[in-house]
């Protein structure tokens, strides 16, 4: 039977796009135009966009020479641990295979471009933590480089970092004497940066980042990671530290009643933190009363646990000579600016010649 010849067609899915000739922004009320300039229209797939740019605009940072001139030389930095972007976020890549290959490429690039160039550069091994077996192989492949001192992963992850899924990575870190470092990493592009929903602005998102760090720290301690891998050291970068007293005290308080649910813990949870976890300074909590800042340092035993970081060249960069209150005692300042990191990376650094140290005190 011949179907009837159609006379009219009704299409239910045709797309149209605004163009520069026909923009739709002119239909947006004027009061919202500054909000659009501030990228308040960003959506989950794009993560949270800093409305004013992530990098400093008062300095050049694109090449190794830029970093040496504008940062290392200027502030007398004897060692700088590099965190290559975007390779440090490869664990968030959808394709496992592509992420694994890019991790190798990123590490080879870092060695060739920076680590072989200036002895002040130290490196972070980039891995795809979503494939722990491949990640461990990559850690063993490049981790023996004398200037590779840590493995870096983003704060956003498939599991809490205490999960045994990641054990092959910790085994490799321990074997290669590499620190396991976390850095905030596009939280909210994958899961939400908070367990109860998405922040509405970059501001709220940026403030929420320590939540991830608190969760990972509790997980690493309570899952017994440091019992299983007694040589493992963890560095929490750019996650703040003002929250640490609360977490340690709460873990220790509950330990008295709930220890039997984690019988592998042989000491108070805070003791694992003090022995295995280190934190970096930037972005520094800045209480209006500098005595409160010093009190936090005392609570977290900062003379052992806190390491200076500048976050060069990002927008919230800290100057080592200006970031801390003037009341900070010199001995503690020295520990934060130098000794704590030297001790953290001691196993790798002891094989290197002593660096040129600036005699100028900051």
């Amino acid at each position, binding site marked *: 039977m011949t179907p009837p010849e159609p006379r009219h067609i009704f299409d239910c899915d045709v797309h149209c796009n605004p163009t520069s000739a026909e923009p739709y922004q002119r239909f947006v009320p004027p009061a919202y*135009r*500054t909000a659009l300039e501030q990228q308040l229209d960003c959506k989950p797939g794009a993560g949270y966009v800093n409305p*004013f740019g992530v990098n*400093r*605009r*008062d*300095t050049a940072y694109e090449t190794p020479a830029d970093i040496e001139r504008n940062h290392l030389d200027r502030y007398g930095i004897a060692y700088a641990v590099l965190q290559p972007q975007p390779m440090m976020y490869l664990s968030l890549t959808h394709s496992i295979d592509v992420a694994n290959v890019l991790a190798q490429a990123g590490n080879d690039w870092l060695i060739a471009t920076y680590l072989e160039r200036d002895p002040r550069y130290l490196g972070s091994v980039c891995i795809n933590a979503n494939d722990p077996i491949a990640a461990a192989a990559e850690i063993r492949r490049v981790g023996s480089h004398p200037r590779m001192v840590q493995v870096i992963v983003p704060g956003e992850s498939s599991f809490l970092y205490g999960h045994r899924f990641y054990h092959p990575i910790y085994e490799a870190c321990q074997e290669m004497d590499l620190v396991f470092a976390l850095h905030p990493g596009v939280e909210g592009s994958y899961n939400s940066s908070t367990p109860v929903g998405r922040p509405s602005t970059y501001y709220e998102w940026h403030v929420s980042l320590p939540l991830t760090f608190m969760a990972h720290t509790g997980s690493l301690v309570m899952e017994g990671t440091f019992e299983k891998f007694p040589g493992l050291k963890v560095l929490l970068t750019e996650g703040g530290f003002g929250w640490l007293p609360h977490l340690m005290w709460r873990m220790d308080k509950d330990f008295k009643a709930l220890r039997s649910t984690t019988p592998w813990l042989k000491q108070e949870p805070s003791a694992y933190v003090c022995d295995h976890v280190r934190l970096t300074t930037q972005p520094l909590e800045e209480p209006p009363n500098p005595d409160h800042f010093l009190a936090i340092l005392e609570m977290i035993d900062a003379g052992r646990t806190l390491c200076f970081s500048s976050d060069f060249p990002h*927008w919230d*960069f800290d*100057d080592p000579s200006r970031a801390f209150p003037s009341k900070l005692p010199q001995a503690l300042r020295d520990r934060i600016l130098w000794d704590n990191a030297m001790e953290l990376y001691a196993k790798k650094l002891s094989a290197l010649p002593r660096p040129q140290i600036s005699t100028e005190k900051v």
Partner: protein
Amino acid sequence: MSTPPKSIEAAFEVAAASRRAETGKRESLCVGPQADIPEGGVKIVAHGSISIGVFHVGGEFYAVRNQCPHQGAPLCLGKLHTTHAPAAVGEFQPALAGRVLRCPWHGWEFDIVTGKGLYDARSRVKTYATRVDEKGIIWIDL
């Protein structure tokens, strides 16, 4: 009653009054010809150890101390923006169009017309009076 030290409304009141630095009598610093600084641009000049940024916004020249009161960053290498005035929840009121300087370290906001920091009631960065002479040369009155 005194103004709460953290009042953002107070900060915006000071900025909105747009009161500029008084012309000094003691000393003048030559910035150069007007043509050196296009609309929206800045020129950094030095007076001894003091660095000053001269901005050209809306046909006027504004001189601002090139040192952030927070950590001493070169403030005038930051970018000019429009900000939002304090408003009701869910409401956006664009304000101080093009005259808000954002520090290149940490992003703190300052009004270049009055020098007022827009994050509390007290902070400010020093500003200087400017004038353009009959030959089109910009001067800062120190």
